C-alpha cells in the first residue's frame, strides 16, 4: 500500500483579531501601546481547528462549505502561503496552487511576456513553457493579441489567457480555488473538460468551490468544512446532500440585554424548500408591555454588505396588543429565485411606520447554496443582481 500523497495532521490556524485595529500596524501604534494602560482588546479566532485528512495519489477531493468556513485558509496552508499555527502536513509530490488565475499578470507586459511570467510564478520551468507555448496560446484563443499589452485586453480575454497558462501546469498535486468560474459558457465547457482530463491523467486535485455541480462532476470524494472544522467527509454525493440540508439549518438570535421597552426576545429562522421556491420560516418572541401601542413587525432581507434586498410585512396593520407578557409568533416568507450566498434578516417592530420600538438590523443569517438554474456550471455574481428571473427561449 502506497503512502498517501498528502497527509494533513491536526492542522489549526489561529488568527488574532484586534478590535478597532487597522489591518496593518504603524509604528505609532506600537510605540503608544507601550505607554497605554489598556491594551488593545484582542481575541483569538480559529480559522481552522484540528483538521486531519489524507489524500491518496490520483484522487480528486472537493472541499466545500459556506463562506468563512475555512476553505480558503486551508488551501493557503496547503500551498505554503501561510503557516499553520499547529499541526503538520506531509506532502509527497510537488504542489501547484491556483488560488487565483493570472497571479503576477502585469498590465504593461504583452500576452507573450505574461505567459512566461505567470507560468514561471506558478512553478513551470522556462523550457516547459516554451514547449507548451503554442498550445497555451491556442487554448486561450488570443493569438492575435500576443504582442499587445495586457492592459488593452478585455477582462474576459485576460481571464482566458490566465486560465490557459494554469491549464498546462503538470504538478503531482493541484490545488484549485474557485477559478473555474471564468469566461463565457463555451470557454467554461472547455475548462471543465480540461480539468476532467487532468484528473483522469492520474494527478491529485484538491478543489474548493461553491459550485456543487462542478464539484460533483470532478470529484469522487469531498470534505465539508463548517466553522473551521471538518463536519463530514466521504462520498461527494453524501457530503453534498448533507451540505444542502445543513445549509437550511436554523439560525437563532436571542436578546441578552435587559430592556424595558417592547422588544424582540428571540428570533429563529429556518430555510425550507428548494430553488426556486425557498421558504423562510421565522418564529419570534416579543416582550410586550402594558402601556405599549398596538404594533406590527417587518422583516428586511439584506446581503452581506447590508444592502437591503427586500422587505416582508406579514400583516400591514398593528396586531400585537399591549399586555405584560411574552408573545410568540410564526411567519412564513416566500423567497424568489435568488443567487447562492449568505444573507441576513433584520427584524423591526413598532406601532407606526415612523415610530420604532425595536429594530435588530442584522439579526439572523441564512445561506443559499444551490443555483436556481439547475444545469448552470458558472458562478452567480452579485454584479448582476440577486434575483434570477425565470426565462426561456420561445423562438
Amino acid at each position, binding site marked *: 500500500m502506497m503512502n498517501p500523497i498528502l497527509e494533513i495532521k491536526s492542522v489549526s490556524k489561529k*488568527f488574532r483579531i484586534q478590535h478597532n485595529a487597522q489591518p*496593518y*500596524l*504603524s*509604528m*505609532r501604534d*506600537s510605540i503608544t501601546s507601550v505607554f497605554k494602560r489598556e491594551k488593545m482588546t484582542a481575541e483569538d479566532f480559529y480559522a481552522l481547528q484540528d483538521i486531519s485528512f489524507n489524500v491518496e495519489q490520483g484522487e480528486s477531493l472537493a472541499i466545500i462549505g459556506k463562506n468563512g468556513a475555512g476553505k480558503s485558509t486551508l488551501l*493557503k*496552508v*496547503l*500551498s*505554503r*502561503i*501561510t*503557516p*499553520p*499555527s*499547529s*499541526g*503538520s*502536513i*506531509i*506532502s*509527497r*509530490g*510537488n504542489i501547484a*496552487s491556483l*488560488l*487565483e488565475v493570472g*497571479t*503576477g499578470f*502585469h498590465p*504593461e*507586459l504583452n500576452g507573450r*511576456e505574461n505567459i*512566461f*511570467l505567470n507560468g*514561471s*510564478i*506558478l*512553478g513551470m*520551468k*522556462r523550457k516547459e513553457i516554451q514547449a507548451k507555448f503554442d498550445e497555451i496560446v491556442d487554448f486561450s484563443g488570443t493569438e492575435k493579441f500576443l504582442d499587445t499589452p495586457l492592459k488593452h485586453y478585455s477582462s474576459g480575454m485576460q481571464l482566458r489567457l490566465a486560465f490557459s497558462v494554469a491549464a498546462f501546469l503538470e504538478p*503531482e498535486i493541484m490545488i484549485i480555488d474557485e477559478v473555474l468560474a471564468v469566461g463565457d459558457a463555451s470557454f467554461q465547457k472547455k475548462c471543465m473538460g480540461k480539468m476532467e482530463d487532468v484528473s483522469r491523467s492520474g494527478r491529485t486535485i484538491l478543489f474548493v468551490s461553491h459550485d456543487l455541480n462542478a464539484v460533483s462532476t470532478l470529484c469522487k470524494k469531498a470534505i465539508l468544512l463548517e466553522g473551521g472544522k471538518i463536519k463530514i467527509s466521504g462520498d461527494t454525493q453524501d457530503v453534498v446532500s448533507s451540505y444542502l440540508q445543513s445549509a437550511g439549518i436554523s439560525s437563532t438570535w436571542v436578546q441578552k440585554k435587559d430592556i424595558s421597552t417592547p422588544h424582540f426576545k428571540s428570533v429563529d429562522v429556518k430555510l425550507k424548500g428548494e430553488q426556486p421556491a425557498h421558504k423562510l420560516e421565522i418564529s419570534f418572541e416579543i416582550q410586550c408591555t402594558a402601556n405599549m401601542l398596538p404594533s406590527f413587525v417587518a422583516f428586511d432581507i439584506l446581503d452581506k454588505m447590508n444592502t437591503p434586498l427586500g422587505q416582508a410585512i406579514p400583516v400591514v396593520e398593528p396586531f400585537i396588543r399591549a399586555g405584560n407578557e411574552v408573545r410568540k409568533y410564526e411567519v412564513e416568507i416566500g423567497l424568489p429565485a435568488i443567487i447562492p450566498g449568505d444573507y441576513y434578516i433584520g427584524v423591526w417592530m413598532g406601532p407606526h411606520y415612523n415610530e420604532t420600538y425595536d429594530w435588530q438590523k442584522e439579526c439572523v443569517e441564512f445561506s443559499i447554496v444551490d443555483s436556481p438554474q439547475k444545469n448552470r456550471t458558472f458562478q452567480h455574481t452579485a454584479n448582476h443582481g440577486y434575483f434570477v428571473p425565470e426565462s426561456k427561449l420561445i423562438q
Partner: protein
Amino acid sequence: MQFWLKTVYLLYMEYEIKPHEKLSLGIKELWQYRELFFFFTWRDIKIKYKQTVLGFAWAVLQPIIMMLIFSAVGSAFNIPKAGIPRPLFVYSGLLLWNIFASGITNAGNSMVSNANIIKKIYFPRLIIPISSVLVALFDFIMTFTVFIAMLIYYFVTGQIHIDIVGFMLMLPVSIFITSLSTFGLGSLLAALNVKYRDFRYVIPFMVSVLLFLSPVMYPISGSHFVWAKYLFALNPLYSAIALFRTTFSDSTLHIYLVLISLASSLFLFVAGVFYFRKTEAYFADMA
C-alpha cells in the same frame, strides 16, 4: 512566541509543512527556484522603461546630471578630490551609490508592491528583494559604460594613473560589498515595511540623508576629526567606494576604517536576512 514555516526535505520531493523555529538562508530552495530570479528581474526592468521615450538612457542620464551638479558644487567649495579630475571622483562614488540607493528603495517596497503575488503563491520570499538588487545592478551596467569611457579619456589625456590589476580586482569586490549591504538593508526594510507602513516614508528620507553621509562628493579623509572618520566608516558603502577609488587615484586606504565598514556591511546582511526569514511566514497574513 514566533513560528515560521520551514520546509523539511524528508526524501526527494517529500516535505513537511509545519510551524518551526530553525533559521537558514534556504540556499537549496532558492536554487530550485532560480528561474524566478530571472523572471522577476526581467519584469521589473521591462516595466521600468516601458512607455518612456528615452528608455534605458534614463539609467545613465540621472547619474550624469548628478555628477555635473556635484562637480560644480565641489569646485565652488573646493572640496578635496583625491588628486583626480572631479567628475571622475564624483561619478565613481555615484556609480556604487546608485546601486545602493535604487536597491534599497526597490527592495524596501518590494514586498508590499508584490503583495498580490505573495498572498496567492508560494516561493522563497527572498527572491523578491534579491531581484530588486539585481535590477539595480542592471542599471549599474549602463552607468558603468559611461564610467569606462571617462576613465579611458582621463587616462589617455594623462590626467590619471590606473592600477589595472588592482582595478580588475577591486571592481568585483566593491560591487559585491555594495550588493551585500544593499540586499541586507533592503530585505530588512522590506520585512519592516510589511509590518509597519511607516517605512514607506522612512525609505526615501533615509536615501537622501545617506547620500550626504556617504563619501560620494567628498573623501572622508578630508575630515578634520578622527572620531568623525570612524563614524563615517560605519557606512557600509565607505569601504566599497574607497577600495574602488584607490585603484585610479592617489588616495591612501585607511585599513581600520575599511574593516569597520566591511563589518558594518556584513552586519547589515546578516541582520537583514535574519529578520526577513524570521518574519516572512506571516507576510501573507499581514501584507
